[in-house]
């Protein structure tokens, strides 16, 4: 595979996509895990399918319309939740399925042969284009800047939003920032893992990192590295055995979490027995 990397541009792109998506996943995935927004993120990903359908119907780049849908969904869920105190879980469920339904509707309205949706649903890292990479680089820069510059505020906000609010910290701004970043991350990752599988990339690396660290910054860094290893392993297996990359990456992620959890248990047992 190493030799092919130098030969084929698509493999180089896939490799860069691995690195870029690991950065986004590691940082935003940690935020999602600690703020307990996993289900909402899944909902945003699925709702963006409506945007992809709309893109095909209107003949524009589906990722851009998907972006509109995902940002719209995440802001709507948070606004409705704030104003009406409706359970966000419930809202997520509604937006999740309505978004998917709209996508199906738009695609059926699209004239001509129905487009192949599988790369959007399950992702295909081997077809990532130069434009996709540019979008991903832009997103990574935004994420790294905002999280790095606002890290101390973000930490206080994530730990105890109410206290932060009493201290007059900009909690509303942070709300919007977090929701928009999640929406952007989810859409960009669709190219790598697809709508249905994207949630694995946002959860498995931080969940693994959480097993080994109690420091927010370190959890983010370990998540990025874990994500990178998982993504590269997945890509390698996918390329070698010609299996869809999205599925392989997710399976590798799930297995890695399981193994890490077992290792962690083993370490605890050894510590316990040596302490006694």
């Amino acid at each position, binding site marked *: 595979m190493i030799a092919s990397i130098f030969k084929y541009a698509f493999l180089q792109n896939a490799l860069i996509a691995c690195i870029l998506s690991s950065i986004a996943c590691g940082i935003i995935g940690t935020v999602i895990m*600690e703020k*307990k927004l996993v289900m909402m993120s899944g909902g945003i990903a699925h709702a963006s399918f409506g945007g992809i359908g709309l893109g095909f119907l209107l003949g524009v780049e589906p990722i851009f319309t998907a972006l509109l849908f995902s940002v719209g969904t995440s802001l709507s869920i948070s606004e409705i939740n704030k104003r009406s105190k409706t359970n966000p879980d419930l809202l997520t469920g509604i937006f999740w399925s309505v978004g998917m339904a709209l996508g199906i509707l738009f695609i059926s309205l699209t004239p001509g042969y129905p487009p192949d949706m599988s790369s959007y649903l399950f992702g295909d890292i081997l077809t990532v284009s130069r434009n996709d990479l540019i979008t991903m680089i832009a997103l990574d820069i935004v994420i790294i800047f905002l999280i790095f*510059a*606002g890290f*101390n*505020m973000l*930490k*206080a906000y*994530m*730990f*105890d939003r*109410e*206290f*932060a*609010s*009493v*201290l*007059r*910290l*900009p909690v509303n*701004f942070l709300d919007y920032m977090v929701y928009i970043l999640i929406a952007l991350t989810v859409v960009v990752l669709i190219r790598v893992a697809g709508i249905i599988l994207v949630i694995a990339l946002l959860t498995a690396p931080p969940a693994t990192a*959480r097993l080994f*660290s*109690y*420091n*927010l910054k370190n*959890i983010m860094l370990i998540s990025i590295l874990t994500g990178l290893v998982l993504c590269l392993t997945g890509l390698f297996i996918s390329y070698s055995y010609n299996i869809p990359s999205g599925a392989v990456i997710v399976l590798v992620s799930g297995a890695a979490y399981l193994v890490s959890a077992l290792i962690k248990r083993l370490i605890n047992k050894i510590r316990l027995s040596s302490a006694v």
Partner: protein
Amino acid sequence: MKKVIEIENLSVFYNEICALENINLTVYEKDFLGIIGPNGGGKSTLLKVIMGLLKPSKGAVKIYGHSIDSLRVPIGYVPQFGSFDREFPISVEDAVLTGCLYGKKLFFPKFLNDDHNTVSTLLKELNIHDLRKRQIGELSGGQLQKVLIARALAAKPKILFLDEPTASVDTSAQGELMELLKELNKKITIVMVSHDIGAISSNVKTIACLNTQLYYHGNPELDNCMVEKLYGCNIDLIAHGVPHRVLGTHKEKSGKEENK
């Protein structure tokens, strides 16, 4: 004496349900006010409205003569344990340091040496300095309560609000906590919400009895018989101190319910 908090004709409705009705209350500087009342009596709601976490449906709250939005001084807040995630990956030291974020800018807020000194002094004063590297989930109830108090004090507030500070703390730690608050009260105004009558009546300077309406505000010297009644009976019993009023207030209540 300087007025710290002024509440005028305050009412709060959650949809159709009235949580607070026509509250008028003034808190003066260096007061130690204990707010008691039954569960669902609106104690935490009142605290949240005063701190600006909830908007009042009617009436106004002023702190040092300013509305909460134009207030330019920090407020110290010690929340209930349930309001945040105890598993959150943050150390004692870092949790207390977040209190120093008051007045700092969103991006690249710099912690000064002064901030680190403040935190270290607070941790020493509260006897939790040796726990500073611990993750907050590894602390006992009493230790965690001290961390929350240190965090609130790190903002250097002139008023401190506490929501059920004795609820998740064992008896010996409770005594220590109340001593600490008494000591703090020499310098700052304290407002504390609790259903723990013991903790309140023997330590605070004034008391407020709240059950949707404010039934009593004043001296905490309730006699034993009244305190006993408060546990089993309606808050308005001790509030008015006249058992004969029981019937009257019951009528009032059923009248209210019919209106709804």
